[in-house]
């Protein structure tokens, strides 16, 4: 039986960039089923997704990327898909990278992470402050998981069936937790995480997801999340 893969595209007010993203995806990987999760958009994102031939799941209000991804994972489980690739709606992720992520799953990884910084990925400029924050996060995750990870906030990732089943219940909703904390959860659950260098492009539309102060608050919240979660785990482990 062939492996069935679903591309999940979380989208919030992405009517302008979604059509091109869907077209490119269709051209690069025609065998892929595509589900767009419209996270309570106020524009015509859902219509754009339908016009582009994608299955559309629509949240009644905005819940955050993590919730959109979880909805996509639950849809994948419901329809019995073997794999899920999460792709950004704004066209940052080169559809050609999907094949590289899937190869990593073929090689036994449960979670394949598309990295902008790893050796072999072309230069991608994100600004000094953002870069420093991401290096800090990557350092924390490396220390906790003992895995060679350089880009822990990348939203371009693929999950195998095992990861799918775990994350359909556990995927966190908060910003940053949905990219970073989820890796720690996967690691704790014994899922193998592998990073794959990927070429990324500048955004084709929409706004970057956060401003500086908000980002700082989110970082602090994430650290509390990681700390409390580790504490919970150590209690669970000792009992």
């Amino acid at each position: 039986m062939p492996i069935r893969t679903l591309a999940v595209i979380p989208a919030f007010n992405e009517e302008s960039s979604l059509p091109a993203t869907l077209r490119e995806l269709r051209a690069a990987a025609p065998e892929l089923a595509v589900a767009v999760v419209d996270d309570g958009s106020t524009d015509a994102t859902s219509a754009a997704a339908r016009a582009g031939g994608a299955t559309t799941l629509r949240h009644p209000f905005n819940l955050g990327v993590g919730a959109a991804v979880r909805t996509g994972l639950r849809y994948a489980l419901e329809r019995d898909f073997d794999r899920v690739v999460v792709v950004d709606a704004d066209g940052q992720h080169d559809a050609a990278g999907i094949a590289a992520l899937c190869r990593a799953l073929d090689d036994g990884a449960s979670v394949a992470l598309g990295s902008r910084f790893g050796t072999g990925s072309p230069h991608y400029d994100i600004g000094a402050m953002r870069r420093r924050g991401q290096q800090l996060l990557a350092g924390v995750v490396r220390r906790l998981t003992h895995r060679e990870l350089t880009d822990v906030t990348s939203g371009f990732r693929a999950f195998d069936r095992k990861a799918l089943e775990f994350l359909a219940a556990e995927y966190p909703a908060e910003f940053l937790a949905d990219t970073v904390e989820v890796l720690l959860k996967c690691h704790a659950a014994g899922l193998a995480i592998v990073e794959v260098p990927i070429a990324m492009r500048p955004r084709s539309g929409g706004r970057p997801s956060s401003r500086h102060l908000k980002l700082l608050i989110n970082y602090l919240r994430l650290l509390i999340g990681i700390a409390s979660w580790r504490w919970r785990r150590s209690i669970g482990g000792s009992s």
Partner: protein
Amino acid sequence: MAAIHWRFVMSTRAHIVVIVATAITIGVIFRLVRLQQLRSKYALLWLSIAIVLVPLAAWPRLLEWLSARLGIAYAPTTLLLAACAFLFAVAVHFSWELSRLEARTRTLAEEIALLRTRLEEPSESRPTDALPPLLRDAE
């Protein structure tokens, strides 16, 4: 130093005001419960304050006695301290309740998205087996 005891500062009129205010509060809370605007567990929370406040307002010596027992020299501080502690506990409880509600709302919204998509599909492409099991929250 002139020893002005707090008991003489608080007038009879003030006592009456406190008692009347408490009575009104109790009345409002009961009304809300009867109109089903307030869950009875929260009603119990606020009524317990009234139950503590009324005797203290009616018999001020009670507070004085309690403060002496706790080693607090200025009796009204006892009341303020208790009020702070109580409101803090209530705020923490509400944060907890709110977190739980947010997690549930999120799960419901996801569920709605899945169900809507299922309904919009032409029936022949719909999976024929029963609906997948409801997601249990990870808490």
